[in-house]
């Protein structure tokens, strides 16, 4: 039986003394003042880069919250879906490499088409063949093997040809050359498609299977992005993605902007990068508010009530005639799509796509800690968690380093223990995340902003 921490049977009674609304406002004000503090103490540029990542993290956390908070589905593959969103950034926005298309575009497209046809044929034969006995396995297997060999023989020469086209600068097919904002939507669609496949395979079985299957698919997505150079340039990275906002250089050359910076009494360089960051922040806020509004509306709708019913008692919901597996699939796809959107936004902000930067700790488990610490099942909680945990994630390393420095200050500066501890401070993040996760789950399983009872 699946039991969510928020289900009435096990969740501790809400004992908030303060009115919840007041408390929430206080929490968000506290978060805002943390950012303001960074702005005043360090610099507003730093504060706004933290804010931008906070906004993206909040959207990712909303996506995970849709899966975990609404439906109790455990997705260990957030990283993969975020990376697919990032791939959309490349595929949509980069200019197409005409030479590469001429060299092998046709072969790759035909190879991909063969792959898809093989899959569809294989599935059809598998479905139809329920009464064929052993022949069912043989026929499906033969189709898959023949299709695979055909696909490889069609695509392989073209792939080599594409990767040989000016490998230092391109060596891949490039993208469609469309505005990068479009990729946010497409990133969502990519992630949703992958989620549909994984969900179709592993939902309806035990909860562990979804976790393991998503762990697997996310690793494989990263491997594909790392090694399929024709698609994403692999470890050579794609840099210089076009931006939806002005470039600093252009701003600095603009006479109107020079006057504006003068008026603010800021150095020109600082002012331009600050304005760029604020532009991003505005765009991201719009997306965050849209996703938040949609999720809240969905949560309040009859559909949301049904999802909670399924989460809290699958058997009863099933008995009421709700198709549990189908709803789980839907909610899993929706949540992954939101993660994909956030992934595309992050690549847009970075201006580059680096497959090696996708680490499970940073992209899967950090998001999980955000949702659980913020309050699973509550969208505002997920947003707050996204902000707060990202803030501390960024600040954990300096704090850890400072802590080690203080602890070992009694030792001579070249003592081996001191050196070792200072060197290891970088790994404190891993442990801190684990400790936070365990502590929150144990002592405050409903998170900072608990799900409200309806």
């Amino acid at each position, binding site marked *: 039986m699946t039991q969510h921490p928020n289900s009435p049977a096990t969740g501790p009674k809400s004992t908030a003394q303060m009115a919840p609304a007041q408390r929430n406002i206080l929490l968000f004000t506290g978060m805002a003042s943390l950012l303001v503090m960074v702005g005043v103490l360090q610099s507003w540029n730093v504060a706004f880069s933290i804010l931008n990542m906070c906004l993206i993290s909040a959207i990712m956390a909303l996506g995970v919250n849709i899966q975990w908070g609404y439906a109790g589905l455990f997705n260990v593959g957030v990283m993969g879906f975020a990376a697919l969103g990032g791939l959309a950034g490349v595929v949509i926005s980069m200019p197409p490499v005409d030479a590469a298309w001429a060299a092998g575009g046709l072969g790759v497209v035909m190879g991909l088409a063969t792959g898809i046809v093989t899959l569809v044929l294989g599935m059809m034969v598998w479905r139809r063949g329920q009464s064929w006995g052993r022949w069912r396995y043989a026929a499906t297997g033969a189709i898959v093997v023949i299709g695979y060999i055909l696909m490889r023989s069609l695509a392989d020469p073209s792939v080599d040809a594409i990767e040989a086209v000016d490998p230092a600068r391109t060596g891949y097919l490039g993208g469609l050359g469309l505005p990068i904002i479009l990729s946010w939507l497409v990133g969502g669609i990519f992630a949703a498609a992958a989620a549909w496949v994984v969900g179709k395979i592993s939902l309806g079985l035990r909860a562990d299977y979804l976790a393991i299957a998503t762990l697997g698919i996310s690793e494989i997505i990263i491997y594909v992005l790392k090694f399929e150079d024709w698609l994403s340039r692999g470890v050579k990275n794609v840099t210089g993605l076009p931006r939806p906002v002005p470039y600093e250089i252009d701003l600095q050359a603009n006479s109107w902007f020079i006057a504006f910076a003068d008026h603010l009494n800021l150095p020109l360089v600082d002012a331009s990068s600050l304005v760029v960051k604020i532009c991003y922040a505005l765009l991201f806020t719009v997306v965050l508010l849209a996703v938040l509004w949609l999720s809240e509306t969905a949560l309040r709708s009859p559909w949301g009530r049904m999802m909670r019913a399924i989460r809290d008692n699958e058997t009863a919901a099933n008995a009421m005639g709700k198709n549990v597996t189908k709803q789980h699939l839907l909610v899993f796809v929706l949540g992954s799509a939101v993660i994909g959107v956030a992934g595309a936004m992050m690549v847009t902000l970075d201006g580059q796509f680096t497959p090696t930067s996708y680490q499970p700790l940073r992209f899967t488990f950090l998001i999980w800690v955000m949702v659980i610490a913020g309050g699973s099942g509550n969208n505002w909680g997920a947003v707050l968690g996204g902000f707060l945990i990202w803030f501390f994630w960024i600040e954990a390393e300096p704090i850890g380093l400072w802590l080690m420095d203080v602890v070992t200050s009694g030792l001579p500066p070249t003592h081996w223990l001191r050196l070792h501890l200072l060197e290891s401070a970088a790994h404190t993040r891993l442990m801190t995340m684990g400790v936070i996760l365990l502590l929150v*789950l144990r002592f405050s399983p409903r998170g900072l902003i608990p799900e409200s009872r309806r």
Partner: protein
Amino acid sequence: MDAVLNALVLIGNYIVVPGLAYGSQLALGALGVTMIYAVLRFSNFGHGEIMSFGTMLVIMATFAMQDVGISISPLPTALLALPVGILGAVGLCLLIDRYVYKFYRQQRASPVIYLIVSIGTMFIIGGLIRFIIGPKDRNFADGERFIMKASAFKANTGLAEGLAIKTAQGVTVLTTFVVVGLVFWFLNYTRTGKSMRAFADNEDLALLSGIDPDRVVRITWIITAVLATIAGTLYGLDKSYKPLVYMHLLLPIFASAIVGGVGNPLGAIAGGFVIAFSELAITFAYKKVAAYLIGDGVLGDGLLQLLSTDYKFAVSFMILVIVLLVKPTGIFSGKTL
């Protein structure tokens, strides 16, 4: 005739021998996962890190022994250091169980909560390991490197291809054989083992007949820690020790356990070998084998490789997907111990 023999030797050298060793390591790992699943009923994501933790202690003990000059050459010193790692890992597992899992057992929490908690423990152990030994690569295999060298094999048989067996591979297979034998003897012939099986089979019935649940859980953790340390050390001897690698081993280990039927020890072992051999067989380049059997270049000048070795972990995933689609209960229908 020589051509066929050469082809067979090639396959033996690149698939059979490494497959037996890798399969043994996976089997030991999967056996631990499956035991936890059968008794505590969750998939332990922290298993890879427990393996890594035990191995780390073994490495440190090995280095200490090497400094003092203790060795059991031609065998690797790590075998002698194994008890240190086992003790440490057992202590760690019992501590974690006492301070983390016990609470959720009393709450009768759902498996998903255990899953998330196990991920939390994974981080803490992982952080601890990187803190103590750092993220660097460590090679701790010593003693004789080969049981049989490729050149010696070539000289003795007169074949063009050589068959090499590393000491680590031989040690792995032998150790696995002994350990698995002991585990099965324990489960089938001792009173404690039988009580564990009873507990795994039907918790309530086991409680009614007076089996102490805490004791069963403790013993399960002890066995898991022993298996994990041995598996991790053997893997480290065979390849080399790197903390990051053990996290990537989780997927093949889970796949092995599920292929065999989660909760079924026999299945875990079969699953380990299925995954290991498929991984090697699918990522092996058959070009040279084909050259021996049907002549050079008949099938074109490709490597005749089904999947590049970059994707070796994808193989476990594909097998997992096939099992989930075709027979979700695994080869040996699971959930018995």
